[in-house]
């Protein structure tokens, strides 16, 4: 498998190192001369000097025969363009893009650059998973398919507390798919009783989050 990596920062270099160790063929493209010199000491012919948003640089790196292109520069516009050209001009089958500013995720989605990985967002998700009290946790979002899965904790005084699954008044377009308890998770039956402290996974259509969360949280005291 041949992988072209655009961007020789920490992410790009570490990725190249790991992939080489696993036996992949790798080319790394770095546009800053000083950075290139440093990387070349270690990675030698694997690294090429140039701006990966220039077509001739991508072509010289062998993008036409690449199985995977990874765009991990520090610049979101560059990552978008590199992936767009790799996909549409050079018919590269798989791409992976790094999102530096999580606010730009919407642009990657709009322009069909997938998967787009934001380290900031991933860390945020982890923090939210550790601290579920701050609300619901998005576990999975399939934007194209208009489906997402959230995790929500059943709190004292909630409508759903001590209620059988079939009696929980969930809005249309949502469904409880799992219950997580300290001794393990399981798929509930319609007569399974939901208790306070249970963590519930719900699959739902985007936009229903608040309605769903309201069922598992106590009514807001005024």
């Amino acid at each position: 498998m041949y992988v072209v990596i655009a961007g020789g920062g920490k992410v790009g270099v570490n990725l190249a190192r790991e992939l080489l160790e696993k036996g992949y063929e790798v080319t790394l493209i770095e546009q800053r001369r000083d950075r290139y010199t440093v990387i070349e000491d270690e990675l030698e012919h694997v690294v090429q000097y140039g701006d990966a948003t220039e077509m001739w640089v991508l072509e010289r790196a062998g993008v036409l025969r690449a199985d995977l292109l990874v765009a991990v520069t520090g610049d979101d516009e560059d990552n978008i363009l590199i992936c767009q050209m790799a996909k549409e001009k050079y018919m590269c089958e798989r791409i992976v893009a790094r999102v530096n500013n999580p606010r730009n995720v919407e642009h990657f989605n709009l322009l069909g650059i997938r998967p787009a990985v934001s380290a900031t967002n991933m860390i945020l998700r982890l923090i939210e998973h550790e601290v579920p009290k701050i609300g619901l946790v998005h576990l999975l979002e399939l934007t194209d398919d208009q489906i997402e899965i959230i995790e929500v904790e059943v709190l004292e005084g909630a409508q759903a507390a001590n209620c059988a699954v079939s009696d929980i008044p969930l809005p249309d377009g949502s469904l409880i798919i799992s219950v997580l308890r300290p001794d393990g998770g399981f798929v509930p039956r319609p007569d399974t009783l939901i208790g306070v402290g249970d963590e519930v996974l719900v699959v739902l259509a985007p936009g229903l989050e608040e309605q769903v969360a309201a069922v598992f949280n106590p009514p807001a005291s005024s």
Partner: protein
Amino acid sequence: MFVLVVGVGRVGASVAKRALERGETVSVLDRDALSHEQLEQGMPITWEEAGGLFTVGAALESEALIAAGIERADVVVAATNGDNTNLVVAQIAKERFKVAKVIARVLDPARAEWYGQRGGIETICGTSRAIELVDHSIAAAEGGS
């Protein structure tokens, strides 16, 4: 017509001023508040007095684009000093905000050609133009000797 110019450099400022002189509604967006001065070069009154709109913000931030009026723009000109920023902003204008006419200034002839042919947005490449003119001028000199 409502014209939004993103990026007030030499090209953006001149294009914005010309459109305003023709009587269009012109809004400009630049991340640098001081670019206002460039805009007012050679103008007897301020940009705002002349009827122009000015917003400070980053080209890729949707809030900034909306504040600058992209939702009612008939034309968007992406003229920052970065080719890639211009190409991304132009595509956002086209795909998300459905702007009728979108023009991106692109210095790299290869990218300008490919994105121009790809459709949706128009690309203008000053570099290609300069190459042609210089080449033509040299050829004329050769012919004359």
